[in-house]
């Protein structure tokens, strides 16, 4: 089933009745995702897009045995939505919402950890197991099933890699966008461990960016210790000046931490192949899974 999500996964959507929530639920259903419930406080008992709506996550969980939640609620309420899902026994929470206050996230993150639940995001595009199911906003038409796993801090660069691979005839197992915020759920380290143990994944593409030291930590604790599969790395923001926040709240070089050079160096030292452009990433991934790349993007 690749990692984290399959066509059997029972998915609920928090904020399904909102503008973003309903648009993307429709897309998720069209992709084949098993959407079993929606949660919108005050709209319990109604149905939208053929999906039953509940007032609380606990109600939805009891009635539908939902296992995964996708969160599309507005930023001021999103941390609470994450904790509601965690408290109700949802196993995997995917928070798409951008702009959650950091103290809210720090608390929600601690809450989720205590509950022993997996959180992806926030401020992320979600995940897709190609040809099976997706939770989040990754465009439907770009994925194709295969054996390359993708993990990325950037949404749009994830799309770039997925599309590049698909156009080159190279399919993907699961693609996971972990998000661009400073306080995140799953880190590169945790997602890479899942890929390492996944028999359906033959090679992994990791898209990092400036800021923080998650890439370095993953290089040291997972990639450099017998990863057992080819790992192709890419770091964006190599020309970004220090002290300037490049869009993502997490993408900032402060002092000597978070530089692209340090990340590239750590990945290389751990035995990863680090590429300069997305085209190179695609060609390297194609070669790694034994497919000749027909990708000539130019």
């Amino acid at each position: 089933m690749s990692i984290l999500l399959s066509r059997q996964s029972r998915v609920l959507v928090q904020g399904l009745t909102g503008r973003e929530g309903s648009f993307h639920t429709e897309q998720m259903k069209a992709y084949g995702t098993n959407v079993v419930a929606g949660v919108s406080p005050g709209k319990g008992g109604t149905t939208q897009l053929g999906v039953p709506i509940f007032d609380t996550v606990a109600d939805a969980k009891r009635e539908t045995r939902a296992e995964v939640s996708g969160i599309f609620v507005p930023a001021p309420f999103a941390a609470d939505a994450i904790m509601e899902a965690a408290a109700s026994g949802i196993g995997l929470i995917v928070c798409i919402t951008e702009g959650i206050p950091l103290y809210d996230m720090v608390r929600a993150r601690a809450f989720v950890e205590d509950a022993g639940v997996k959180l992806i995001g926030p401020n992320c595009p979600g995940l897709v197991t190609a040809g099976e199911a997706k939770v989040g906003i990754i465009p439907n038409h770009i994925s194709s099933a295969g054996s390359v796993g993708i993990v990325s801090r950037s949404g749009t660069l994830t799309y770039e890699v997925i599309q590049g691979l698909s156009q080159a005839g190279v399919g993907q197992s699961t693609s996971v966008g972990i998000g661009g915020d400073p306080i995140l759920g799953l880190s590169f380290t945790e997602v890479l461990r899942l890929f390492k143990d996944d028999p359906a994944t033959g090679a992994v593409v990791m898209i990092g960016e400036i800021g923080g030291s998650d890439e370095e930590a993953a290089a040291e604790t997972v990639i450099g210790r017998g990863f057992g599969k080819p790992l192709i790395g890419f770091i964006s923001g190599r020309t970004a000046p220090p002290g300037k926040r490049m869009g993502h709240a997490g993408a900032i070089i402060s002092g000597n931490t978070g530089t692209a050079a340090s990340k590239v160096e750590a990945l290389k030292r751990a035995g990863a192949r680090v590429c300069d452009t997305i085209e190179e990433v695609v060609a390297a991934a194609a070669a790694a899974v034994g497919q000749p790349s027909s990708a000539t993007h130019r």
Partner: protein
Amino acid sequence: MKFLEYQVKERFKASGIPVPDGRLARTADEAALAAGALGPIAVKAQVPVGGRGKAGGIKLAKTAADAKRVAGEILGMTIKGYTVREVWCETAQEITRELYLGLTLDRDARKPVLILSAQGGMEIEEVAETHPEAIAKLHPDPWRGPLPFEVRDLIFRAGLGPLQAQLTPLIVKLYSLARAYDALTIEINPLALTRDGGLVAADGKLEIDENALFRHKDLHGADESDEDPMEAEARRRKLTYVRLDGSIGVIGNGAGLVMNTLDLVQREGGRAANFLDIGGGAKAEVVHSALELLAMDPNVKGILINIFGGITRGDEVAHGIIDATRDLNLTLPMVVRMTGTREEEGRRLLQEAGITPEVSATAAAGRIVQLSRGSTP
């Protein structure tokens, strides 16, 4: 959102953290009056950047006449792009020792972190590098905050045991203040030990999480509009923009994609003039506004637009580009790379308007670098 020293000190004072007596002055005469009331004072430029002392923005004045003279020197001077419009005049302190106390978010630990050091006065990053053993840290539980015994342990680890009775309540107060204001960073540096044995916040820094501003609608921080006129204009337009030093204007959707576009421009031999992310799901008006902004920048010699449509629709972006080109009479070279949602409609619209779209980001970067060279006299 950043705050000026005197704004931070007002908040320290309100929450029981001791600060020197002070007054704000907007003219040299007001500074003289402050010295008359307070005695010997420090006259301090109020700008939201560090390094004021080195720049000559902090001076001592013993008398009212002194104060008038130094305030006259400091008011109107420019520090890192900021014009000094106000000075904070506060009682000069007899400092025997300088400590550091601060709180920030530790992204690796995914928690806030309190930092205490016996070596204050300098940049804490510098101390961390040269004397890591001089820094003690505490990661309080984000739900209950720091407990007094944890704070005492922090103080002893910092080698400041003899001050624990005074420091413990001060640290707890600082943490409460940070929480109340959603502070990304709050800092007392130096936290000064004075000749009479008291602790006083000799300087203060506060930066609030922009994502939490909906909870702080009544707050007004430092005016950062001096920083850069382009960045100020971008803020007014609610665009995510960073000014850079090259000549190619870059617009894209998604922070990672835009960062990568800057890297590609450099790889192809050019330099980007800016980072500009129109975000997900941008409508034609946003694209229009982004182009209008870049058109104001005299450094921009060519424009590269890189769109990978997920939520963002190619046709919306194309409409924005076409309308802006017409309305602004844009004659700068422009290259558009467009793929993703509704890419066919978007490309067709562009082609009909005489703009040839690219499919590959690398190729698009190469072309704009070439074209903008041609346009430079």
